[in-house]
């Protein structure tokens, strides 16, 4: 990375488009690709608004007589509001917990040296490589002996800490100049005050990135909630959606209505925090 800063890249003043034949073809191809990427979302929405779409009937590319019937039935036939609430609750708890546990750990790995710290950090990173599948059976057994199967606690406990967050925030903390700590230290601040008052405000973008990723991870997670949350009242959205499909094999309008509801919060979050999400993904690849 250092090399790229030595030779400064040419200043770019936005994309200058030359409308050559090649450029027009490129635009058309990319636009067609984008259309193909977007079509499944469009189709989901159309289906959810076309009542009674099932085994019979050919699909049409626009809702013939649009209705929100499928959405209403979702909320009357299934405890859907409850399910959405469950997902939201678990996602919020997971996000807050991961922000807290990752930030405190990252502070240790960035600012508080102790013998064997490198080894401990290595163990943290190694936990990222352990597939959830290896853990499912013993985790399930463990939480059952604690009587936590089918409870929010059972669903949320394994998600409280994640090495990815520790790694991400440590990277950000290492960018904060040590002089800031020293200045605060001279003013008599201890580690808790430096952490809270100096470090955290300086890594806000990284905290935002982690928050988005943690929320997204929890909102979309499937295997563990599927295993630990069995009764309909505690189920999360993805699990309930998978169940809906079995229940209403032929009623695609209802299944697609559920899918739309599941996409909406992520879409809102994405529009709101696009910069952080894209940057976060790009950074994980570059580091």
């Amino acid at each position: 990375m250092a090399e790229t800063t030595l030779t400064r890249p040419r200043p770019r003043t936005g994309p200058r488009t030359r409308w050559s034949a090649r450029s027009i073809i490129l635009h058309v191809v990319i636009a067609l690709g984008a259309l193909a990427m977007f079509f499944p979302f469009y189709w989901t929405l159309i289906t959810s608004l076309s009542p009674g779409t099932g085994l019979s009937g050919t699909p049409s590319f626009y809702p013939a007589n649009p209705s929100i019937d499928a959405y209403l039935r979702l909320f009357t036939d299934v405890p859907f509001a409850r399910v959405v609430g469950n997902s939201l609750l678990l996602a919020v708890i997971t996000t807050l917990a991961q922000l807290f546990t990752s930030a405190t750990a990252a502070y240790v790995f960035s600012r508080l040296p102790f013998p064997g710290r490198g080894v401990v950090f290595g163990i943290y990173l190694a936990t990222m490589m352990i597939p959830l599948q290896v853990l499912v059976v013993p985790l399930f057994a463990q939480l059952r002996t604690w009587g936590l199967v089918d409870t929010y606690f059972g669903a949320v406990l394994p998600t409280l800490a994640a090495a990815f967050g520790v790694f991400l925030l440590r990277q950000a903390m290492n960018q904060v100049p040590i002089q800031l700590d020293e200045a605060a230290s001279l003013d008599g601040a201890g580690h808790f005050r430096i952490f809270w008052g100096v470090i955290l405000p300086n890594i806000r973008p990284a905290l935002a990135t982690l928050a988005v990723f943690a929320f997204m991870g929890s909102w979309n997670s499937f295997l563990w909630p599927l295993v630990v949350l069995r009764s309909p009242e505690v189920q999360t959205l993805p699990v309930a959606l998978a169940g809906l499909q079995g229940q209403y094999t032929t009623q695609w309008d209802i299944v697609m209505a559920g899918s739309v509801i599941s996409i909406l919060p992520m879409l809102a979050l994405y529009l709101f925090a696009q910069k952080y999400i894209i940057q976060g993904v790009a950074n994980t690849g570059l580091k």
Partner: protein
Amino acid sequence: MTGLLSQATATPPVDGPPALGPAVSRRRGSRRLRYALTVLVFLLPSAVPLTLFVLVPMVAAAGISLTEWNLLRPAEWVGFDNYVRLLTNPETAAIFWHTLYYILGYLPLVYVGGLLIALALNTALRGRTLFRGIYFLPVITSWIVVALVWRWLLNPSNGVVNTVLGFFGIDGPGWWTDPAWAMPSIILASAWKDIGFVMVILLAGLQAIDPELLDAARVDGAGPWRRFFSVTLPLLSPATFFVLVISLINGFQVFDQVYAMTGGGPGGATQVVVQQIYDLTFRYGRAGEASALSWMLFIVILAVTVIQIRGQRRWVNYG
């Protein structure tokens, strides 16, 4: 991933332990104790859950894999029987082959597709941000929704794909109901979801390339193909390496989309390793065998990752 691993061993530049100043040596001990306590207080919130819910279960899974256990009755010690049974059962080879089939179909599709999109979006293109947003949209969607939507799009009887194919006089296949087409259906849906992720990683890699290197190659008379294969692609190798490592790790763990699209069917044609772990545990009550299988999966993932990291020196160019 190598980045991650090398970061782990290299100690980052940090300030030393807190300066003690002209402290009286008697107070030194209590200061040290306070410092140790501070470290503990900061570390425990993450160390406790990671130990209890990752490290302990990891070891426990190894123990369970040596028993016969249906999650209800007390476990029965059987030694390496589960491993022997798995290794001699032709079904095990089949589920690993299905998993590999998924990876072999999915990986070239997302890499080449993601690369082409990234290259296009790295040129002076109108609406770059919008296009990037659209291509990235499936990444934030859950696997379950992706699987359900594609199951509906690829519905053999009246799905939109077969309907459109019908307009052109093509008799569309039975997609997820036909054993020959079920895995390609899953691969298609997965590639659609992940192509935007690969695109962003490769786009970031492309933007880190110094344009002067490409200019120099142009001055030396290198045509566009030569510039791509001799300059761009080698400089993109770290991003390519990252995509490969992550995709392989994720590919071996494929589950959500299989569970929701085919459940391992039809006729076991899409039965992958994780689906088998789930079925063994929660359908057949063979948690011991499931744990043995999950440890086998972990060892395979570890081996593949280590081989990749070892092999990277030959082709990954960190400039």
